[in-house]
């Protein structure tokens, strides 16, 4: 068995509740396609050069890298327990994948399905595909659309783990601990950095986008919720608490056709894929992924 362990930040530019799933710019939720940015595509991008990626600035010139940067790579590879250093740094992608709920019509309560699911691993410079395999929602009918899938079929693509206040997510995304206080400090730091950036920005389009981001980052508490907490101590708002800490984990045995394989996989067997998404950052429109893919060898 060849095990590829991968991780890194990915981007997912999509609308958030209560916007409709197909909202292209963002209105009622807290994610927006800002001035000068393309419409949302709703697609999971593991690599920074994928069409549709739109990475934002995080602060003044001196602090420009203080935020997520897209890039999911193999951090460790082992063949039957022995290290395979040549594969370290290989690029991982979920081609055209989306995290889907359809506002409760298909699934509910953040138990998102991932669809379509096609995993590709390429060389570290991206010039050569090493392995590429699809998963079928319904092996008996590979063309079946998600709209027609049964509950059991959707269940395979839904999370098996849902953890709030995850210390693993906090550590992976650079937070010292998974407390609300730390989250709020993190948001406030980002906001201060953006305010500095705004001061040194002249382009009116960039300024308009920054103003919206700063306005959103200012909302850290549920200001509207008068029946919870006290006036001086409000419950934390979803803009802040979803910045980190939540972890959703999927276990999917990839069962479909192998489009390319230079690693010697057994095409007749499923290849177990285990991963979590967490640390969703609504300002960066990024989150963190960590996982492994077990390629069963011939």
């Amino acid at each position, binding site marked *: 068995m060849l095990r590829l362990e991968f991780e890194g930040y990915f981007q997912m530019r999509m609308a958030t509740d209560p916007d409709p799933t197909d909202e292209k710019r963002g209105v009622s939720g807290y994610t927006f396609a800002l001035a000068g940015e393309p419409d949302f595509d709703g697609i999971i991008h593991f690599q920074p050069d994928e069409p549709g990626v739109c990475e934002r600035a995080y602060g003044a010139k001196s602090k420009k890298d203080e935020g997520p940067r897209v890039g999911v790579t193999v951090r460790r590879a082992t063949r039957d327990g022995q290290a395979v250093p040549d594969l370290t740094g290989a690029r991982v992608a979920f081609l055209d994948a989306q995290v889907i709920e359809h506002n409760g019509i298909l*699934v509910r309560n953040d138990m998102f399905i991932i669809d379509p699911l096609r995993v590709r691993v390429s060389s570290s410079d991206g010039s050569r595909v090493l392995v590429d395999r699809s998963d079928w929602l319904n092996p008996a009918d590979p063309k079946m659309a998600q709209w027609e899938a049964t509950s059991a079929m959707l269940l395979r693509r839904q999370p098996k783990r849902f953890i709030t206040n995850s210390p693993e997510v906090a550590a992976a995304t650079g937070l010292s601990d998974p407390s609300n206080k730390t989250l709020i400090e993190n948001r406030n730091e980002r906001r201060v950095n953006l305010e500095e950036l705004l001061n040194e920005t002249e382009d009116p389009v960039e300024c308009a986008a920054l103003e919206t981001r700063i306005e959103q980052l200012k909302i850290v508490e549920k200001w509207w919720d008068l029946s919870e907490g006290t006036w001086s101590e*409000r419950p934390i708002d979803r803009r802040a608490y979803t910045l980190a800490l939540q972890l959703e984990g999927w276990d999917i045995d990839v069962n479909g056709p192998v489009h390319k394989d230079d690693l010697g996989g057994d095409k007749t067997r499923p290849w177990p894929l285990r991963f979590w998404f967490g640390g969703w950052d609504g300002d960066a429109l990024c989150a963190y992924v960590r996982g492994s893919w077990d390629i069963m060898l011939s």
Partner: protein
Amino acid sequence: MAQEISSRAELIDALRLASELEHGLMAQYLFAAYSLKRYDYEGLKPEQLERVRRWASLITLVARQEMEHLGLALNLLSAIGGTPSFSRPNMPQRLDYYGEVKIKLTLTRCDEQTIERFQRFEAPDELVEPEPPGSKNPPKPVDQEKAGEWCSQRKGVGVTEVEKAIDAPPRSDLLKGAPHIDLLYGIPYSSVQELYQTIHLGFEKLSLKLGERNLFVGKPENQLYGGPQSPQHGTMNDLNQYGLDIISVTDLASAKQAVRMIVEQGEGVRVPPAYKPFTHFCIFTRIREEMKKYGLGQTAARAVVPNPMTVLQPDVCPEDEVSRITNTHTRAIAQLFNESYEVMLLLLLYLYSDQVKTRAETDALMDAAFFPFMTMFIRPLAEILTEIPAYKEKDEPGQAGPGFELSGDVILFPNLDQTWTLFQERLDSLVQGFGRVVSMGDPWLDLPGQRTDPAKPSQIWQRLDYLRQSMERLAADWSANWLNIGRSTEVL
């Protein structure tokens, strides 16, 4: 002196009026928000679009909170044994429909005049210039300078001061109440704030007169609310999300709290400092100021016609304020919008009704009513309508919009089995309606921004087809097992 509420029937009447008012305001706010421009092909610069999008976010927040107020009013009604109601007149209505309070019911695009009207709806009493009794003039806009000063005052106040403000008796110089058919007892009020003050005092007085236990005779399980105490806490259906805060009303203290929350949020009674910029009045004050400052008062919104209707509803007045939709495709979509809106109200009515419901049934109704209907059908259809022509003649300009038309009272069958059959029939009818609309063709390819890929249909057609798929899935799930919509697995 003001007439006080002195019986349960009067209190029910006042709460039904409050529900109707909140419902009407919500529709007007949504109509305006959906009319705002969104895309780079609509003639605004990117930085202007960003500003306009922020306004849309704020107005939809206010509209959601009007839904919250409607929910609170229905909880108040249910708590004292009243029947929930989603009845309201179609729009437009004459200026004095609600008496001399002059709340104009009309659907207009989001321009400076519309925002002035909204700002006045939500204005605190002390910023409204009283008009002479009997005046036929439209109400004067709020003084923007004074409004700005009011909203910039960030001094925090305590709960006690808020209590005092709401507990204050209505003014003695009340104007004549609304000659409204539902308002049998002619509850006098000169503003929305004052109506709620009257209701607040009514609860206190009747609790003393009848005894608290005798006043609050409604079943607690009929209350819909959110937050940690709610059965729906932590799910999509938790009502205390997205700027909403709905509490359960079971006694005098919770009734007073519900009224206080409505007044605090909207009508501008004192609020905590962090809250003030988000009061409805201050939101509209800010938008009005920015519209003027950036010269967007007439250009931020699409050329949406006022009060677009599929038919001339018999209760509208004056008729010449109605815009009849004559474009065949547009009218079909507008009919679909109205039908979806009515089904959503039916689902809500059942939710608030006294019919026996298990927890699973309550959840299932919420699963269907809130996220799918509100977000996945009603809003997208409304947005589509503001992008497509209202009229069949090409030289007649103007886009349509959501008319929120009701063809009659929203009522349920008394029998439970018949009710489920009714829902299934209505969902099946919507499936057919969406099927018809997408099979009528794609006349929108030549509209701005619609042809993004030569091989694909227009953006509008694609969105309609997406809605069709969603409705088919919803109806099929309802038919197979209506208790399991979107719940292929439980939360682990």
